[in-house]
């Protein structure tokens, strides 16, 4: 299991550490600093083995978090723990920075004592941690005996993520379908790979212990329902367009996985406040909101001509925002002249790229930029690697085609029904890694 956790600043000084196992000596701290933080080379692996001691690290801004162990631990678990630790710290004091860590070292000590016991991760849900972590005085000192046992049963219980007795005057929930669409396209316009990774983020302000059921246009469900309908064909024709094939999805721990496995229904008791309900991935029938058509021509050894056309590919009534096209330029660029029809374009020498920004663009439109790049003559034999042209944007629909069909809320003990809950649904599609090779 985890032998210890060290938190370093960028210089390799230890800000906080906690050792859980006797086999981890003080020299482990130095070993990691010398071999990883101060290493001249770029980090070649997030797992390092130094003298039979293994180090796992993640970096957040310029802070290094390193887990050290001498055993054959579950490596995936260690990284998941480190991410969780970062989340917990962030929810307590915001950004993980040297200053914040120094300001909260007692809290971190207490958290580390509670989250890990003898190197075994225990409870890492911020919601329930806040009920009994004493630092930052979230809860006062005057808990009744009842409250105390409530805390412990919640921490260890089946619904560790939600406490009893939550009350709201207005029962409200917000659903955000956030998708990032990823594309890798060849210069000839062939899709090399494309996928959408989506998240359903929910903010719930609901009283009591509500039971929720979430439904979307999942192909498997719709087909199942369609088969029960009048005719098979009719079912297909209606569902064919509207349903989507989900490759895979993962759920927040509140979702009953066995129920999803057997009935493919998503039912759960939600945590209070904001959380991520599910993640999913689709690869079929993705609406690619933009198409990039590059044209790069080398004119002699000292000049490049670049022409890039972007085409928007969605309903004309919708507007895409925050569009940014990044056209890489060679390292030996001496000067750039740009002409664009729409938006603003600038050559940024420090980033070795032409950045073209367009505030808004409607669907089914086209825009173009052309640039002349002057190059310094070099005797460098190595060819320019030609990084791909990348794009950023935001569109008000889900590129996967996912639609929320319903979110039902049941709370039998309190007197509010599904109709009384105010529900908001929003779709945002963003570019993930959206690249076209040139």
């Amino acid at each position, binding site marked *: *299991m985890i032998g210890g956790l060290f938190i370093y600043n960028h210089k390799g000084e230890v800000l*906080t550490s906690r050792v*859980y196992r006797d086999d981890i000596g003080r020299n482990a701290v130095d070993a990691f600093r010398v071999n990883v933080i101060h290493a001249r080379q770029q*980090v*070649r*692996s997030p*797992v390092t083995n130094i003298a*039979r001691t*293994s180090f*796992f690290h*993640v970096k957040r801004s310029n802070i290094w978090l390193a887990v050290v162990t001498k055993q*054959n631990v579950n*490596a*995936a*678990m260690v990284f*998941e723990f480190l991410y969780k630790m970062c989340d917990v710290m962030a929810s307590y004091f915001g950004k993980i920075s040297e200053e914040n860590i*120094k*300001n909260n*070292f*007692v809290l971190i*000590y*207490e958290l580390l*004592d509670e989250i890990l*016991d*003898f190197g*075994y991760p*225990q*409870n*890492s849900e911020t919601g329930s941690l806040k009920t*009994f972590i*004493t630092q930052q005085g979230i809860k006062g*000192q005057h*808990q009744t*005996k009842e409250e*105390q*046992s409530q*805390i*412990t049963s919640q*921490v*260890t*219980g*089946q619904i*560790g993520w939600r406490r009893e007795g939550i009350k709201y005057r207005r029962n409200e929930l917000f659903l955000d379908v956030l998708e990032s669409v990823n594309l*890798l396209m060849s210069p000839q316009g062939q899709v090399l790979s494309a996928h959408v990774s989506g998240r359903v983020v929910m903010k719930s302000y609901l009283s009591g212990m509500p039971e929720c059921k979430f439904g979307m246009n999942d192909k498997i469900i719709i087909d199942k329902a369609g088969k029960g309908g009048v005719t098979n064909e009719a079912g297909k024709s209606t569902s064919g367009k509207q349903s989507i094939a989900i*490759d*895979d*999805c*993962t*759920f*927040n*721990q509140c979702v009953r*996985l066995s129920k999803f*496995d057997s009935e493919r229904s998503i039912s759960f008791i939600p945590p209070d406040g904001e959380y*991520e309900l599910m993640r999913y991935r689709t690869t079929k029938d993705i609406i690619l909101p933009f198409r990039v058509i590059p044209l790069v021509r080398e004119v002699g050894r000292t000049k490049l001509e670049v022409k890039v056309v972007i085409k928007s590919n969605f309903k004309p009534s919708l507007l895409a925002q925050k569009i940014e096209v990044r056209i890489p330029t060679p390292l030996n660029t001496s000067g750039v002249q740009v002409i664009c029809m729409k938006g603003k374009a600038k050559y940024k020498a420090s980033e070795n790229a032409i950045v073209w920004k367009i505030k808004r663009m409607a669907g089914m439109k086209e825009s173009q930029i052309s640039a002349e790049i002057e190059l310094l003559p070099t005797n460098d*034999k*190595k*060819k320019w690697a*030609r990084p*791909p042209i990348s794009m950023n944007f935001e569109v008000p629909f889900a590129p996967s085609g996912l639609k929320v069909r319903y979110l039902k809320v049941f709370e039998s003990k309190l007197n509010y029904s599904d109709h009384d809950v105010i529900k908001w649904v929003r779709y945002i599609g963003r570019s993930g890694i959206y690249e076209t*090779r040139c």
Partner: protein
Amino acid sequence: MTDSKYFTTNKKGEIFELKAELNNEKKEKRKEAVKKVIAAMTVGKDVSSLFPDVVNCMQTDNLELKKLVYLYLMNYAKSQPDMAIMAVNSFVKDCEDPNPLIRALAVRTMGCIRVDKITEYLCEPLRKCLKDEDPYVRKTAAVCVAKLHDINAQMVEDQGFLDSLRDLIADSNPMVVANAVAALSEISESHPNSNLLDLNPQNINKLLTALNECTEWGQIFILDCLSNYNPKDEREAQSICERVTPRLSHANSAVVLSAVKVLMKFLELLPKESDYYNTLLKKLSPPLVTLLSGEPEVQYVALRNINLIVQKRPEILKQEIKVFFVKYNDPIYVKLEKLDIMIRLASQANIAQVLAELKEYATEVDVDFVRKAVRAIGRCAIKVEQSAERCVSTLLDLIQTKVNYVVQEAIVVIRDIFRKYPNKYESIIATLCENLDSLDEPDARAAMIWIVGEYAERIDNADELLESFLEGFHDESTQVQLTLLTAIVKLFLKKPSETQEETHTYTHTNISPSFDSDNPDLRDRGYIYWRLLSTDPVTAKEVVLSEKPLISEETDLIEPTLLDELICHIGSLASVYHKPPNAFVEGSHGIHRKHLPIQHGSIDTGESPVSAGPAAPIEQAQSVIPSQGDLLGDLLNLDLGPPVNVPQQSSMQMGAVDLLGGGLDSLVTVCMFIFLYLLSLFPQIWLPAVKAKGLEISGTFSRRQGQMYMDMTFTNKALQHMTDFAIQFNKNSFGVIPTTPLPIHTPLMPSQSIEVSLPLNTIGPVMKMDPLNNLQVAVKNNIDVFYFSGLIPLNIFFVEDGKMERQVFLATWKDIPNENELQYQIKECHLNADTVSGKLQNDNIYTIAKRNVEGQDMLYQSLKLTNGIWILAELRIQPGNPNYTVKHPPNLNSPNSELRSHLLFLSEV
């Protein structure tokens, strides 16, 4: 208010001040003071002298203050054991506190204090806490048992805590169950033989129920524990799998990987034709792909595991190659791993896409990555024949870029392509030769030299090229030197010079640099070639220019038993390092090596599911040598050319079979036999455990009291016992067969070994083997049938009645025409005639006569083989001169060379 202020007090008398504050009336002041103490502790100041004062603050009902004091105690108790005792009472009292959080805190902290005196006091409170009404206390107590076990294992056993832990598996609270499982799993690792966890169907059911309800971490502990269970039949395996599959949709990647581990293990038990088996395989692929959309570190762990899964069950991800395409922003460690998997998944169906990708990668910046990409293109060419042509042209394009490391890497892979597809792409040699000067890495230089040597006849200036390498011969690495040596010999054989004289000088000047090398391999190879060439160039040609075995399509495959073991460690560090845990965990040598479950009922069929993966059948695997053969493999794998028929002298031919028909030529055999002879004297591992599912066989051949024996040691390195041994020989040159069945009657238990002596005779069927003394053996046990081959040292065939009558000897010797005699010198042999004769007699080589001519001892030797063939030799020994001269009839050269090698060996002694 921030904590950083605690760090700033840095005045003199700080400790004194803190002391005063710790004893302050007000709780708030005391709390502040303890925080300051802890701050000082963090930055490495010694605040141990405040121990009594801090302990005083322990007596409080304030949870925050208590936690702070406990933190301090944990840190200093070890260095202040006597004072730590002062705290014991408070601990014991806190374990009775009405607040469950405090009870748990006390028992948790006490377990962290590794002081013997304290552990004594821990037992009673721990016992109570294990039965506490509050689940939070119980789950903390469960972990505490593991802590105590780490400090004092005996005490844990004596106090019966292990039983209490086992009871907790049935606890109503899922988190208590999970922690109990974690603690038991850890403890049982140090007791490999005890059945601590006692996994039976009832317990498994409890675990599966808890699995649905506990925290993500608890799910990991339970899944990891489940993976150690061996279901009794496929029904049970299937029902567990059904309850584990929902975990594949968990957001926590560790839960997913641990579930994959359980499923991969239990898949072994499911019948392959069943629907469920195939459904399960299909279900495994999406979650694995999803892992790749996580954070880079988790992606890395996932990719290392996918690498294993792809080797074990390629069908799972064969459709998904696109997700392994490298993204521009991936960290380098993710890129390299993805590339590895891409090569493994490359097939005819997707090769076009893969090649296009690889070509992109080859223009990237990171040197390691680019090299790997270039290498990958080469692997594709070898793996998918249809793509070879495109791969080669891609590689040529890359060579044109003149980027140094790209060119070098490309040349290395082109060599392998040449080997795979001989006589197909030689037209590109000219292009390769243009880049000769830029090669500065040993691998690339060796590859280029190999190509020049191999195709010397097509390269006009091959001799000049090689000479340019020769100039700096002594500065080259051994690898390059060896290749260069071989290339020169090839060149000479392919383009012999006009006159004998010239040839002689040419080779000598070129080979001789190796003679004074410090490296014995290099020197020996130099001598071997030299003698070969100077004696019999025709044979040399047959040997050196023989056909080479094919190179394998897959590279870097993990050896199957290790792969199976690593599959049992999916998700863990072992799977990231691709090494078994005992390779990197200290003091783990006694730990059980994990192995995949074996399908029941499959034993009789002789096919175990362990080998059911992509692993090739053993025989096939042996016929393919890895692309980087070592020197030994190199020498022994030399294919001998077709037999050259030399007229036989029938008078000498008493045996029925023409075994010694000159198929082997003298010098080759000398070299080889020296080798083999040396090898035969020491027990050799004939069948390594990794090739035979844990069965290792080593041994030697010997001749005792006129009887031949095969002395073998059978070792069971597997985890199951072995029974039903049997042995069989393939037909061989001398008709060797065992006279009795294999005398192993008792089962061979794990890590046990048994020595057997198998008497042999030579009345079996005869078939000429290559080399002559090769013996192919099949050994069967309850697991499988294994094949190996060993070389029988010739001297065991020398029979006791090999002493020829003097008259007969004389007559026969005279019958041999003079021009048929072969002479050979044995150098550096410091023995006198009597000793030699004695030593030879031990091996049934008899001295018929001895005479002294002009101060030289002449020994006349005879020996007889089991098949009745006689061998005669004359040995001339000059006292004071360490060189022996052997003269013998050439048609009997083969065994005679053995004789000489025997003498050679004596000289070594």
